[in-house]
């Protein structure tokens, strides 16, 4: 399983997102290194189809796909936790589901 975390320095959320992602991978018994990809320009954001920091990809697919028409730019990504709160990082349970889906699709 190829796991990537794309991040931009304008958001302080990526260390927390990385820690949660690594915990979910460990809990799910997935032995995958997380590749960290820094996005540094709007041009790179468009090229990488980066909707904001942090973005987590599993086997090349956004683990939590953004809404239709979401622009690709250097910005901080807004996630919703399962209780409805706004968060700079994904709900760990959503990440867990994404990991399980990716494993089932292999």
């Amino acid at each position: 399983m190829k796991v990537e975390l794309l991040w931009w320095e304008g958001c302080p959320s990526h260390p927390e997102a990385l820690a949660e992602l690594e915990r979910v991978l460990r809990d799910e018994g997935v032995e995958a290194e997380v590749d960290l990809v820094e996005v540094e320009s709007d041009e790179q954001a468009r090229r990488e189809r980066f909707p904001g920091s942090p973005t987590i990809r599993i086997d090349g697919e956004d683990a939590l796909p953004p809404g239709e028409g979401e622009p690709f730019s250097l910005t901080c990504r807004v996630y919703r936790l399962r209780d409805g709160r706004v968060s700079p990082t994904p709900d760990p349970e959503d990440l867990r589901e994404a990991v399980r889906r990716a494993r089932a699709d292999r």
Partner: protein
Amino acid sequence: MQIGDQAPTFSLPDTSGDQHGPDGVTAVVFTCNHCPYALAWHDRLLQVARDYDGVTFLAVNPNDGERYPTDSYDAMKQRVESDGGWPHPYLRDESQEVARAYDAKTTPDVFLIDAEGRLRYRGAPDADHRDPSQNAAWLREALDAVLAGQEPARAETDPVGCSIKWL
């Protein structure tokens, strides 16, 4: 700007076009529409404004509205309107001069000014954007101290949030 320094005065338009600036004890909160940290703290900060009648609250959006259209002046107006109004003005800092004068770093970034115009608190609203029960405690502590004519015990904390989107 250091704690105890005279804070810059300013006059900025709100979402109705009316001008506002610091007046008496004033909380200036640099914030925006798109940042998840600003959004996570938003309700707590609105509640502080409701709870501290007599204190001037000013939310200021300095982000580049061209590169970040969700932070444009029009988007600010739409947000306030769709919320049915806010308890305090939401100001547009189009030139970013006010954000630069305050040396604001993030959204949110909170500055509390006393009645003499001196900076008494700067930093985050509270210790954890994830925890609504924190209730903007650091700002409230500072407000209580300033209103009692005392120095806030915690005068400075690290602002936490998205970097300001400079022009």
